[in-house]
């Protein structure tokens, strides 16, 4: 039934599964290097749920990284999540259906490979999250079982024999290990390129390009092996993807999966009712807030950020301060920008942007509490990013307004009036009219009422605050009616 699975099986491995040898046990080890694809029948439902559950874990791992959680914290959080969505018990566990747990783990991984092999960015993120997951599992694996797992495959390392070990005794001991246990300690030799993390920290003895890795750092080799294999396989899958005439039903599922990852599915916020009151806005909520409550200028910044994955300096400043006043804490702001600039690595982000974010929150430099830019400042800023009502060409503005506020009830007949106001140079008024038009339904705002008491928009934050207030009041009314 699953052509994809069969094809990829044909691509990646000729010898059938690691099965049979182990007395009918298909998955002898808890850990899996995912060398062989699943080549059995799978129901469409299983196909989707196994992937969705795994995706939750991976998204949690990603957001742990964005939130700068320590390794221990990340581990705890991930293990709790795994317990819930993707339990994977050790071979000695009693009463657990190990086979089916391992099967789901196996299947989920391969479904996500199909979903995430499609672009460079997806591959990179998937690779990072999967490797982290593997590390967490490897660390928590029981000693004896780990040994069995390691013995089950060839890592291509050379055990250092006694003569060679004794020859380099002094050198080896300046890095790691202790004199008294040296006789029993094991060392493995690999090319240094396979353990860059150990070389980076100067933790191994190097001779002629070979790294002498002590037994307790063996995991570095394993992780590196896992990562390079997965990276290679993802590229391979990507290359073969277009040639698979896949089942029509799968395309949609795979699309959904990759998009969910991009948006960070860990956030449950979009399902939850809007019960916040400005104080506790989370990074994941910004997308939704932008769609419902932002004035045109900030919508424009947000869309550009999403589209280009970058924003120029003034754009960041203006939009960042707006978000600050909106109620985004500095921690959430860092997460928000980190996730938005997903084309750069952590190093660059910390070096180039983190300081500026903290600065705008008054935590660096002269520690001033900078206010958000008001309409006057935005209007006179010279147009980059600027006020769309003033700085966009009329055609551009019309189409932008329609696409942005169409979902909130703005129609092309309304546009005529707005555009006339713009032509007259009354940019505030135009913005206020758009507010009135888009809040006539939910908030019951009438023409001329402005953002309350006939006031017109003079500050983007005022616009959003009022919009959120109206939405909240509406919500409360609705709940009252129900009870």
């Amino acid at each position, binding site marked *: 039934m699953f052509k994809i699975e069969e094809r990829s099986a044909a691509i990646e491995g000729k010898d059938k599964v690691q099965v049979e040898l182990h007395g009918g046990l298909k998955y002898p080890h808890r850990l899996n290097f995912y060398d062989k694809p699943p080549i059995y029948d799978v129901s469409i439902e299983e196909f989707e749920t196994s992937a969705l559950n795994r995706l939750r874990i991976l998204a949690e791992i990603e957001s742990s990284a964005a939130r700068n959680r320590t390794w221990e914290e990340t581990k705890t959080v991930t293990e709790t999540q795994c317990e819930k969505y993707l339990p994977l018990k050790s071979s000695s566990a009693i009463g657990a259906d190990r086979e089916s747990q391992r099967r789901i783990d196996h299947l989920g991984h391969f479904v996500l490979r199909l979903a995430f092999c499609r*672009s*460079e960015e997806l591959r990179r993120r998937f690779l990072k999250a999967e490797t982290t997951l593997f590390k967490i599992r490897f660390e928590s694996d029981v000693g004896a079982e780990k040994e069995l797992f390691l013995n089950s495959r060839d890592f291509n390392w050379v055990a250092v024999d006694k003569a060679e070990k004794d020859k380099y005794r*002094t*050198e*080896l*001991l*300046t*890095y*790691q290990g202790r004199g008294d246990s040296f006789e029993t300690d094991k060392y493995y030799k690999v*090319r*240094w*390129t396979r353990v*860059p*993390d150990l*070389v*980076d*920290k*100067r933790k191994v*003895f*190097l*001779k*002629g*390009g*070979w790294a002498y890795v002590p037994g307790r750092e063996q995991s570095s080799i394993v992780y590196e092996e896992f990562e390079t294999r997965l990276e290679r396989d993802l590229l391979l899958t990507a290359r073969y993807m277009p040639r698979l005439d896949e089942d029509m039903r799968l395309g949609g599922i795979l699309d959904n999966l990759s998009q969910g990852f991009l948006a960070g599915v860990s956030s449950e916020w979009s399902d939850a009712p809007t019960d916040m009151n400005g104080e506790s806005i989370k990074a994941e909520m910004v997308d939704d807030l932008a769609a419902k409550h932002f004035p045109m200028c900030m919508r424009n910044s947000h869309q550009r950020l999403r589209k280009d994955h970058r924003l120029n300096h003034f754009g960041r400043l203006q939009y960042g301060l707006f978000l600050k006043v909106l109620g985004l804490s500095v921690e959430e702001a860092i997460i928000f920008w980190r996730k938005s600039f997903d084309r750069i690595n952590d190093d660059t982000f910390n070096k180039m942007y983190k300081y500026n974010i903290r600065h705008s929150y008054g935590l660096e430099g002269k520690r001033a509490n900078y206010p958000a830019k008001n309409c006057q400042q935005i209007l006179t800023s010279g147009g980059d990013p600027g006020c769309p009502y003033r700085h966009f060409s009329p055609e551009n503005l019309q189409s932008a307004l329609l696409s942005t506020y169409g979902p909130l009830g703005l129609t092309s007949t309304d546009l005529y009036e707005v555009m006339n106001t713009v032509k007259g140079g009354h940019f505030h008024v135009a913005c206020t009219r758009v507010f009135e038009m888009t809040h006539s339904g939910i908030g019951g705002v009438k023409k001329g009422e402005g953002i309350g008491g006939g006031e017109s928009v003079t500050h983007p934050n005022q616009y959003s605050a009022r919009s959120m207030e109206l939405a909240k009041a509406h919500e409360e009314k609705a709940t009252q009616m129900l009870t």
Partner: protein
Amino acid sequence: MDKVSPEVMLAFYRRLYPFKSIFHWLNHQPTPESLFVKREIAFNLPGDVIIRYNSFNDHDEFKKQVCKLNPTRFEIGPVYTSRPRDRKTARPGSFNPMQRELVFDIDMTDYDPIRTCCSDADICKRCWSFISAAVRVLDTAIRDQFGYQHLLWVYSGRRGIHLWISDKEAMGLTDEQRKAIVNWLTVVPKDESKRLNVRFGSRALPASLQTALDHLAVVFSELILYDQDCFASPEGYEALLKLIPDTRVVEALRSEWTAPSSSQDKWKSFKTQIKTYTKNSSQRALLTAAMEDIILQYTYPRLDENVSKKRNHLLKAPFCVHPKTGRVCVPIDPERIEEFDPESVPTVGQLLAELDTVAESAEHHSDWERTSLKPYVDMLEKHNLRIMEEVRKEKRGSDMSW
């Protein structure tokens, strides 16, 4: 006279620049391979204009274009998945750097806090000792620890030196691996106020640094204590005191050093202070370790790490002319690095003058043979032969499989 006027440069490219040797060096084989044809060459034109993503089919085409554009210098980039000049026709996302020599850059400016003879762009025979110490240490480390053999050291034309490593494994290193090797070789912290941190707890110096220390201890006494006399001035010895982790010793030394004395004497009194602690006491071990760290701090190679960390970093090609000094960026034999004198490197003006004295009617293609550039080109050619020999051997090895 302007040493490097466009006319001079053009004559240099036409008559002297060893295009063929550079081609062999980049290509590893006599006939054009992807190592050359997919290689990025970037031209620097006057007025800070850079033309990137040029690539050529062979050295003739390369030379023709150089003579046409007459750049002040040109830089060498990575080998890409496809020809850099055709990059716009490549599928989006599929134009990526694949291979590149592992390169290092040591620049005298990184030594400004410690050298006392010159500063900024200046360099003299005396400060060259810092560079030669660095070359000794790096050359040994890379050959011995990383096992690479094809190392080409090139004078950067003014106050530094470049290293190009052409071993197959080195060519293929990823950015992550390049970062790892840089961090392995970086010892002196960028932040001046920070102390060296290279040990694991109270362990002895890691073996790789112990080897370096054995050589650098000699350099330290000759260069830092004697020649540069780094601790003569109050600022100089205060910097030293900051690195000593024992307040009693620091106070004792400070009061002693208010009377002027040479760096050698100061170092001696520091050693005497260490000996006031009994043998095998932990304080003595700590101070001895600090003493070793100080030697490394003052003499260990300081790398410009950004050059090495990324595969796609551009680096000035050997035999280019430094626009300020007019000197040619010539290869240097690491075995004779101590004898090297930057002032004796031929300038482009001098080379052209040499050509005039042996004036003959027609222009030859390899006119460098009749100038003082010859020994340097020969050095590169010898280096190329070793690379090509290895490639040939490898090919023959794989052909045996029939």
